[in-house]
């Protein structure tokens, strides 16, 4: 099956710093989403981005589907950005929109 690898696995930032999270996937995909899981366990959909670039406030994401990777940029990080960031992909072969999640990047932003 498709492999979804995220890097780095852990990241500690000082408030105000910028960061880039990476998601590599081993096969072609129909859909790709980025999620944030807050320290209370709630998963929030950040971006639906099977290709191209999107921005939402301090967050932006870019997916290069032909090269099988996606990047999530966080600028001017805040303590509320802490949590785990997941990339999730829907493989072209799946047929039923089931997303395969990566192992996540655990981010801690220090005040």
């Amino acid at each position, binding site marked *: 099956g498709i492999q979804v690898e995220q890097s780095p696995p852990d990241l500690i930032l000082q408030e105000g710093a910028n960061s880039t999270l990476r998601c590599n996937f081993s096969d072609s995909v129909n859909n790709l989403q980025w999620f944030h899981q807050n320290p209370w366990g709630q*998963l929030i*959909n950040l971006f*639906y981005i099977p290709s191209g670039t999107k921005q939402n406030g301090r967050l932006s994401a870019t997916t290069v589907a032909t090269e099988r990777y996606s990047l999530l940029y966080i600028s001017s990080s805040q303590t509320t950005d802490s949590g785990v960031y997941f990339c999730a992909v829907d493989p072209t072969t799946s047929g*039923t*929109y*089931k997303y395969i999640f*990566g192992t*996540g990047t655990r981010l801690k932003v220090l005040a």
Partner: protein
Amino acid sequence: GAGVSQSPRYKVAKRGQDVALRCDPISGHVSLFWYQQALGQGPEFLTYFQNEAQLDKSGLPSDRFFAERPEGSVSTLKIQRTQQEDSAVYLCASSPQTGGGRYGYTFGSGTRLTVV
């Protein structure tokens, strides 16, 4: 409702006990998904409903796991004869479209199951 509601929030079961986990999706959402998240891992797909039809149950780990959505709204995930390896957070997600598609998922807060 305004979001996806799951109950109970926490469940402790003795090994061998049967449990039922409930998911109330956002009203009118066609698609409903169940995921299992072990500690420190990403969520793993269990099953997918489109309205009342269970279109994909390939992720259910054994025949002890059973899910239903009889009227196309509320869904129940049942685990029979629970075992310690079933301990995890069970997440429900819904989407207004068939499949997740470009509208993405809205996740509930999950049910944390601990089997002792």
